[in-house]
């Protein structure tokens, strides 16, 4: 299954996922995205910046002290939850998502991690 098909499948399984995007964090670029929401390129750029900021200091250093390098981040605000998962093989590769509060977060994170692992493995 290709990248776009993988992202689309995740969106289909979780209707509360507004956007699921694959990003290169090193260049701050969204390389592919799927979802029910119409998002502008500016929104996607902002999503990428938020992903980079999530894995930055000072919380990154606190994470390293506590348990090691973080590869997963969940950001919650007043009306959405964003999920950022980095590849363990190449932390520059990440899947960035915007979801409704009603999403089954545990199942969704597991699904996105599986998608990222499949992309890492080239399957």
């Amino acid at each position: 299954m290709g990248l776009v098909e993988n992202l689309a499948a995740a969106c289909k399984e979780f209707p509360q996922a507004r956007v699921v995007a694959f990003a290169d964090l090193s260049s701050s670029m969204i390389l592919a995205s799927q979802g029910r929401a119409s998002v502008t390129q500016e929104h996607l750029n902002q999503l990428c910046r938020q992903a980079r900021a999530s894995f930055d200091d000072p919380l990154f250093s606190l994470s390293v002290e506590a348990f090691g390098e973080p590869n997963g981040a969940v950001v919650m605000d007043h009306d959405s939850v964003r999920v950022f998962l980095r590849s363990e093989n190449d932390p520059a590769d990440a899947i960035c998502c915007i979801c409704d509060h009603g999403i089954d977060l545990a199942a969704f994170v597991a699904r996105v991690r599986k998608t990222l692992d499949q992309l890492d493995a080239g399957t």
Partner: protein
Amino acid sequence: MNKALLPILARLHSLQSPAIIDPAGGRLIAAAMDPSPITAVMREINETMLGRSLTFHSDAGPNMTLEVAGRRVLRMAAAEGLARADTCLSAPALEDGQKDDLIRLLHALAIPGRTLRVVSTPISNEAEGVSVGLPVALLADLMLVELNGIEAETPEPEPEPETTEEPAADTPAPVLQAATGASLLGRFARANGQVLMAWMIAGGEEDGATYGPEEMVSHLLGFLEIEGEALSQQLDLISTVPGAPVCIALGANLAVGNGILCARASNGFLLALIDGDSTQTILRAWTAALA
């Protein structure tokens, strides 16, 4: 309990525990379902008083050989499958400058969900003359690992959740009632129950509220004192609405192992240490606290 008794009881408990010999060789110190394999590694080192060479093998592939004595990590003799181990491997004796790298490598070795075994052999000649190294207690403090924890066989009475007393270091954390308290941050923290094994609130309505082992809470407080401004700027970057409540949870794997959590609302900060699967609780707790 008298805190001076904790190390003694921990050693006695450890001696009582049966050794499990792994078919691949060595002694199993962490099974796949163990929530904190890093704790098993640190305790193994802490309990090795005479000079020994400890080789830790993860079934995920990485392994590491540490020469230890007297509750100090003297040197790293070997490392396989672990990136950027050169700074530790090249040091004749581990010093403060290698501390962060060693911590990073230990975390990379002790992967949650994987088994860990240890093989103990005599210490090498190179390490015989080393008398410094890095204290295990220092490393454990920085890694928020409890060296003297005892699995609860005689649980002690738990404190009321509304007070700021922390429970004894070796007792299970109380299950807190959901969504009670004066502030959004307090309601959110309590609604997560035992997933947040330690937390503190600074600023806002519940300024000074804490939960969990004192050393963990102190570490969080110290971090906030130093990095408060930078933390605020980081939260600004991940927020979509300036000044609105926001929360971030970070983990190596959000579903297992440890993590950290930070939230900001109404001029207050919540900092917390996560133990276990935060994905099961944090979103529900957050939406309930917002309501």
